[in-house]
């Protein structure tokens, strides 16, 4: 099964072998960049399609169905529509900044793909400071948002941009803190190193891992301004926020940046906490077999479901045992599962208020992130007695989360007394 796993790596190797030795490093860079530049718009287009489909289904609708089978050509027609739309720059706006802002927001989103480990040996640049690179690059987006808001010369835009900057800067702190635990345990900043450290246990199955995973994911959602944290572009309050004054392809670039960043958030959550391209190496196949037995003997279920379910579980167990699933398939499956969760969140929750949003970052995530580092330390120092360490860090986290919730509880509203009405 090695071939299927390494099929892309081998393809690149074959391509490189066509070139003279001296050129190979450059060709290698060109191929990686080319592949990323080619798949990024593709990923974005079909993320919009996925999002529209899933949201529609959650709202009892069909979503796009007209263009192509299941609306599969809808993103392409949208793209063409965006390209032929008139590009309007508001009077009084700064034309240079106005066009620079969406480009500046898209560039870091694509740059993030450079350290995304899509599979075993499938990473464009295995930087030894990959994690630092991730945070450095992703925080550029606050500049571009403010630039866009400022350059549009519109009140809605500038309000949205200010909210956006405040939010992005606030959520960067818990985002980084949640990853500190991972760095502590793995002792590396390299993405590949972190994935390899999860070979026998995904970090999400540890107490500090699940907390860190949730914190990283939610901070990420807030950083890329997606519902329920979409304050900067709150339609009902700010028309479109920082991109109110954008139209045509510039608007599409904003959206492209946003979607690519949400994809990146899902991909990096997968990398850091969900084992990256590792299949669940823990004896999950045992669990599969167990589930197969349970499903097959469950008398409450009708017979066809029982047999199909048992067969599926058995199949899953065999697949896991023999590890036929290539590493990139694992990575993409986990990432798209998280994309589904992202859309699911959007389909479920209303937008938060600004003060709730900031409160969540500063009053809950920040202290919990600090406690999480301590919990990870406890877990690590007690690793000789695994269960004890597990329980101890879980208790620490649960207690502090509970205390934080209690401390942040808003005052219950008192019945109002109207002085002049009586």
């Amino acid at each position, binding site marked *: 099964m090695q071939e299927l796993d390494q099929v892309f790596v081998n393809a690149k190797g074959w391509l490189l072998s066509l070139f003279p030795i001296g050129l190979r490093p450059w060709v290698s860079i060109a191929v990686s960049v080319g592949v990323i530049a080619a798949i990024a718009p593709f990923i974005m287009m079909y993320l919009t399609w996925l999002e529209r489909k899933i949201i529609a289904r*959650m709202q*009892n609708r*069909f979503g796009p169905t007209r263009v192509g089978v299941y609306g599969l050509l809808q993103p392409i027609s949208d793209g063409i529509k965006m390209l032929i739309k008139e590009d309007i720059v508001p009077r009084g706006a700064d034309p240079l900044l106005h066009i620079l802002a969406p480009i500046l927001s898209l560039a870091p989103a694509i740059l993030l793909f450079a350290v995304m480990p899509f599979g075993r040996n499938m990473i464009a640049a295995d930087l030894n400071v990959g994690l630092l690179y991730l945070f450095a690059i992703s925080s550029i987006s606050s500049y571009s948002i403010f630039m866009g808001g400022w350059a549009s010369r519109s009140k809605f835009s500038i309000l949205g941009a200010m909210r956006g900057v405040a939010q992005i800067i606030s959520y960067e702190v818990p985002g980084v803190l949640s990853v500190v635990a991972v760095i502590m345990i793995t002792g590396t900043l390299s993405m590949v190193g972190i994935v390899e450290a999860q070979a026998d246990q995904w970090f999400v199955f540890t107490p500090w891992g699940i907390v860190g995973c949730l914190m990283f994911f939610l901070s990420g959602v807030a950083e890329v301004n997606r519902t329920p944290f979409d304050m900067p572009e709150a339609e009902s309050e700010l028309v479109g926020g920082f991109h109110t004054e954008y139209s045509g392809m510039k608007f599409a670039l904003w959206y492209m940046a946003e979607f690519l960043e949400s994809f990146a958030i899902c991909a990096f959550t997968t990398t850091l906490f969900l084992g990256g391209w590792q299949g669940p190496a823990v004896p999950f196949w045992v669990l599969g077999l167990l589930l197969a037995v349970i499903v097959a003997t469950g008398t409450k279920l009708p017979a066809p479901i029982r047999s199909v379910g048992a067969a599926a579980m058995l199949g899953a167990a065999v697949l896991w045992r023999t590890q036929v699933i290539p590493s990139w398939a694992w990575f993409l499956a986990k990432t798209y599962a998280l994309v589904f969760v992202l859309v699911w969140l959007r389909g479920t*929750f209303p937008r938060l208020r600004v003060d709730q949003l900031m409160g969540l970052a500063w009053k809950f995530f920040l202290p919990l992130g600090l406690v999480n580092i301590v919990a990870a330390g406890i877990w690590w120092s007690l690793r000789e007695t695994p269960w004890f360490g597990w329980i101890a860090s879980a208790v620490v986290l649960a207690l502090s989360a509970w205390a934080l919730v209690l401390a942040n509880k808003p005052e219950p509203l008192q019945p109002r007394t109207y002085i002049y009405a009586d």
Partner: protein
Amino acid sequence: MIGIGVLRGMGVTFKTFLETYPWGRGLLRALRIPTTNGLVTVEYPDVKQQHHERFRYFPFLVYDQTPDNLRCVACKICEQECPPACIHIIGPAKDEQGRPAKAHGRTYPVEFDIDISVCMSCRICVDVCPFDAIEMDNQYELSGFDRFGQMVFNKDKLLKPNDYFQRIKPTEAATVDARLAAKKK
């Protein structure tokens, strides 16, 4: 517990998501969760919604048997009462001496235009007509590329037989017919 409400909310949306797929409904049924057909969308151009009998859109003129036997006598009450003033009537028709021309014992309009892009479907014209000559139609696929050529309906386009009225709105047509029959006696 903290967060239970959040999870419950997500459960609701996920259930709705599953309910829109046949396999999802099957899964929910297998888990003994009551389901509904989640997809309530009527895919309009392919599937048409069955409208209620009293659904109304734009007015039309009723005639009995032949188009020249129209009920409208060109009294212009509807023209005056129409709130957006979208009815234009020329008439009643006159003969060479300037006396009112009659067809089937009634005066009749020379021109009767309704600008349906202005009409707001209020049904006031129907209510004020003393002769039950104008009624509400239920056709709604009337879009066109030409504002005045296609959106201003003239007499030819507005005239429809009483049979048609009886077909689209049986109840209302029956009361109108009964009223007209009582008048004749």
